[in-house]
Every structure is written in C-alpha cells, then in structure tokens.
C-alpha cells in the first residue's frame, strides 16, 4: 500500500520501498485498484463516505501475504479503524473481509524487523539525521525503536537525539487546516527542536507529518530537508541515490 499521499505527492517514497524490498528478496506488487486507507474520512467524522473506500481497500489487497506501507498512520487506520467502518456499513461480508486483511497490514519498519528479521538493510547515507517518531507509529502501532535500529545500521549515518521527540508535530490530518493556528504552533516548536539538533535531514515514517514540519522548515529557510525513512534505507550512495 503506497498510500494516497505518497502516490500523489511523494512517489519517490513508494519507489524507495519497491527498491528496498526487492533488494531484500521480497516479491513486490502494486495492486492498481488501491486508493486510500479512508483515514481522512474516518478522522473527520465521515463514516458513510469511508465505506466505499474501505471496500476498495479490501478488494485491492485480498489474497496477499502481507500489505506493507510506508506510513504508520495508514497502517494504524487499516488495523484499528477499518472494523469501525465495516460495522457502520452493516455489511457482514465487509466486516469479514476487513478481519481477513487488517492483521496483514504492516508499517515498513515492522515488516523489515519483525517479518524479514533484518536491521541492516545494506544502506549507506553519510549525513547527520534526526528521527521524529510519528504519533500513530509510536502510540497506535507501538513500533518502538525499530526505525532507529534500522537507521543505526545505515553506513555513514549519524543519528542525533531530537529533544521532546515523542511530542506530536501538529499535523493531525484535517486538524492541520481545521485548527491551522494550533497545528502551526505545535509544528513550529517541533521545527525549532529539529533546527537545534544541527541535523541536515529530518527523517520519519510518515510523509504527511513530514509535509507539515518540512513545510515550516522550508518557509523558515532553515536548510534542513525532510526525508522518509524508506528513502534513507533504500539509499546506497553518498547523495541518497538508490542505484
């Protein structure tokens, strides 16, 4: 599951996942029927509107051994919210399909560490990096230190501590526009902490959060860039290239 945000806005992250998983010997498919996990609708309160999207999700991903996604938030949505949407639909068939698909959904770092059993994915990225643990990966999925274990095994990468790392960046989906002022206040504090680390790159497992913090860092002309975890793990050359 590449996710709608990555599909439309961050295709490089999706390509990085494909490169990385193939390098580790995984047979990767992109079911073209996939669209979105339905989280934007569910978290804004539009459950009826989420029903067709969850139907599309389960029909796109049925029959696979694992559904891997470069997003803690979308994985959390599939694992914890699809059952709510299925209940809303009143369709036992959809509920059964969700019960079948949801447990097979993995956030990328979970799949690498727990299913493939690797921490050193053979990557090289000689830069100073700060890691922001996104809320849903941390508190909804409980990925713990899997992402940092993966990062620490990357050649040349220097991982610096991000102060108050576990505090939310303020993205929050439609919260970012419905409560834009509060969202920006939270993100500004996150950006300030990032700048204080001296890191060249801020890395996270969710591009939506990075779009928010990265948007602030860009507006501030901070010179810090944001990158998805997958892109760093796929990188094998000094400049972040995958080939």
């Amino acid at each position, binding site marked *: 599951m*590449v996710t*709608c945000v990555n*599909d*439309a*806005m*961050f*295709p490089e992250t*999706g*390509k990085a996942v*494909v490169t990385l998983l193939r390098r580790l010997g995984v047979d990767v498919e*992109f*079911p*073209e*029927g996939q*669209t*979105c996990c339905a989280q*934007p*609708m*569910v*978290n*804004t*309160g*539009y*459950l009826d*509107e989420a029903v*067709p*999207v969850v*139907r*599309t999700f389960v029909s*796109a991903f049925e029959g696979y051994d694992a559904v891997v996604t470069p997003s803690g938030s979308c994985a959390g949505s599939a694992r914890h919210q699809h059952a709510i949407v299925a209940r*809303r639909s009143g369709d036992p068939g959809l509920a059964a399909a969700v019960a079948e698909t949801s447990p097979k959904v993995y956030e990328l770092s979970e799949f690498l560490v727990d299913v493939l059993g690797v921490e050193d994915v053979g990557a090289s990225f000689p830069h100073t990096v700060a890691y922001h643990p996104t*809320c*849903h990966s941390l*508190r*909804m999925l409980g990925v713990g230190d899997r992402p940092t274990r993966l990062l620490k095994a990357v050649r040349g990468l220097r991982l610096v501590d991000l102060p108050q790392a576990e*505090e*939310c960046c303020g993205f*929050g*989906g*439609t*919260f970012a*526009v*419905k*409560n*834009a*002022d*509060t969202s*920006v*206040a*939270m993100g*500004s*504090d996150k950006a300030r902490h990032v700048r204080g680390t001296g890191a060249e790159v801020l890395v996270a497992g969710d591009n939506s959060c990075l*779009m*928010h913090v*990265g*948007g*602030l860092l860009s*507006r501030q002309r901070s010179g810090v*860039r944001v990158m998805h975890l997958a892109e760093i793990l796929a990188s094998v050359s000094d400049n*972040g290239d995958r080939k």
Partner: protein
Amino acid sequence: MTATFVGMPAFPVAARAALADTQLRANLAHATSTIRAKRLKVVAEVDDWEQLRLAGAAIKDNTLLHLDEHLLRLEESLTAAGATVHWARDAAEASAVVAAVAKSHGVDEVVKVKSMATAEIDLNEHLAAEGISAWETDLAELIVQLGDDLPSHILVPAIHRNRAEIREIFLEHMAAAGRPAPDDLSDEPAKLAEAARLHLREKFLRAKVGVSGANFAVADSGTLVVVESEGNGRMCLTLPEVLVSVVGIEKVVPTWSDLDVFLQLLPRSSTGERMNPYTSTWSGVEQGDGPQEVHVVLLDNGRTRALADEVGRQALRCIRCSACLNVCPVYERTGGHAYGSVYPGPIGAILNPLLKGVGTTAQTDSLPYASSLCGACFEACPVRIDIPSVLVDLRAQVVDAHRGGMPKPEALAMKAAALTFGSGARLGAAERASGLVGRLLGRAGRTLPGGRRMLGRLPGPGAAWSDARDLPQPPAESFRAWWKRTDGGRHE
C-alpha cells in the same frame, strides 16, 4: 464572580486568541512540563502501574454497568449514617438544593472546597442570584475568583497565571472580599500563600455552611472522600455546622478495597506525588464531631446521557486527575479557556459533548476536532480512557447530526474524495490533473536541498495550509503512473 464560559466562540477561534498570548504560552509550557516530569518519575516507581490502570478501568466499568444498584446502596448507607440524600437531574435542581439548605440556616455566605461538579453547574452564580456569596478556599480557585477569571485547568485552575500576576490580583481584589493583602506583598510563593492563608482563615472561622464535591463515594459505607493538597478542603469539611456535597453519580465506587486502587492512581497522575497531603473521608453525621447536618446531592446533569453512549461512556471513568491535560500538545499551547468549559483539554473535548449532547451548539461540536489525535492522553490516563477513539466517534456523531441540510464545503469535499478513492482508475485521473498543475507551475516556488520544489503562499482554500507552511509542488508523475510506465520499475 461574573466571568462565564457561556457564549464562548468555537475552539479554533478561541485558540487563535490564546496562541497569540506569549505570557500564557510561557506560563503553560513551564507548568505543564514541570508536572509531566513529576508524573513520569513517580509512575515509573510503580512496578504494576499497568495492572493498576487495568484495575481502575475495570472497577469503574463494572460499577457503571450496575450504576443504579450502587447508587441506591449509597443512598441507603448515607441515610443510615444520618445524611440527607437529594437527587438532582440538572444544574438548576442541584443549585436549588444547596440554596435551600443555606437559606434554611439564614446564611448569606458559604465556604467551598475545590469541586469540579459545583463549577460544572455554575453553583456560585446560582447562589449569588439568591443573595448568597460562595467563597472559594482552594488557593488557585481563590485566585480565579478574585480575578473575576475563569478556570483553565482541572487541578490547577490558575495555571495560566504566574506569581507576578497573582500578586497583582491579591493587591487589587482581596480587600473587596474580606481581609486585604498586605501593602508590601511580594511575589514570593510563601508570601502569596501567607496572604491567602490569612484572608481565608477569617472565612473558615465565620462560615456556618460548607459546600464540597467528592472525589469518590463509597457505596457500602456511605463514605464521601475528598483528596486535596492544601488542607483548606479539610477546614471546610470540618469547621462549619452544615455541609452540602454535590457529587456526580459516576463518583460511586462499591467498596473501600475499590477505593484503594484509585487512591494509588490519582495522586501520581495528578500532582505527580506518591500520596496527596490530605485525604478526608466522612460518613454522614458523627455526634459532636464535624458538621451536624450533612446533605449529599447526587447529580446527573448529562451523565446518564453519556452512559447511554456505547463508545463514549468510558469517559465516566474519569477521576479528574488532569494527566491528559498536562501531556496534551494542544492544551499546552492554547490553555484551557479555549475549550469554553470547566473541563478543558482532551477529557473536556469528549466530556462536554457527551454531557451536553452533540449537535446543540457550534462550540460544543468544535471540541472533538480540537485534537491532532496524537494519543498522548490515552497513554497517560490512569483509567485507560481511549480518548482518541472517543474523539473520532464523536466527530462521526457531529457529522451525522448535520446530515440532511445544506452540505458544507467540507462535506462536499468528503463526498468527492469518497468517489475518487472509490477506484484506482478515478484516483489516477485525479493525479494526472494534479501532475498537470505541477507542470503548469513549472519553476514556481523554491528548490530545497535534495531537489524538491516547494510552493509558497497559495490563494483560496489552500491558504489555511500555506499561510505558515510551504507545500511541495505536486510531482509531474504519480507513483501509480510511474509503476504503469515502467512496469513496476523493471523498465526505467
């Protein structure tokens, strides 16, 4: 006190004003980070903290399942112990009971223990309308009352004030309410506390009627419990001749062994202490000791409405510790006033709509959206209230309450998204359009290290995002298009 939450604007509007107050931001950041650190330290000391949380949640859930039986048992025990039990459906009924008791003793003032239930029902305003002054005796509540202010935190209602501001309030307003502050009052905490102590002592010794809430009500012994830090509560509970306690019906616990769990959970979660300094318990009337006339008002005021909500009823487990406020990144930046209720923060964002009902006011309906759903509140809650899940459920209730009328732009956008996300082909078409926009923008914006082009301020609906944040320029080719063109990257 004339300050009121009535008529407060919806959260985003109130938050904008609060966010601009730099002194408030500094006061809150300092106070919440201090309490957070204390809480983490004392919680880490308890090996079976998670077991305690589970026990707390289970006791509350089981009690709520048979709430009617436990309440009748409580009434029976209280009555046997010499207390008079009153049942109040709402704020007006509860306030009328308190006013009637005060009037039956011919008093024009009462002293109060810090109590969320009486704040919830605006008891002070109701009593003032009957010509009765209600004096707050908790230090922070006193600061709020003297400053004609509103509480902004459950445990620390004056958390938005620093000591310099408190000194000003004491110097300006104490005289009108009783013993004045000394002219040479400094902003040293000990001097401020001493001024409050002398001011309040006069009121404790004079008052004939005390008013309290209760943290817990033990059904099998008819015992009310008040947990506090200052001892002012105990003065109110023991010195007056008459005591009236307004108790939410969800405060009942079956037995003292159930209470045990909460007396471990509450102080660690709220003040970050192993044990609170004062725990007062009383069961009805004790001849010759303490108040000789004891009234208990059992308050519904929306609690049975919350109980009927399948997902939201877990909010009735709340023991008002404030841990969720102290860890909330939204609360830390906006403060409590923005929530427009005596219950602010994450718990307020669910409790207010649950008690008042969804679809009644725009202010209440804005509260479930006052969260980034980061989940820090659930992690900190000592009774495991899954606040993010309740918030999401309430958002669905808000949307459902407004279905049928003229759809808002947001509802139309969601319907359009549901259609687009209904098939991969339709999403692909939408992405080609966005890629076209990206190409049309060409070299607009700026290039970041790494090569990504960023767009600056956007017009129209994009402004909510782009007023403060750049947006990456849409890529010319979506992942989906790339996969198709290159056969999954095999033919780049």
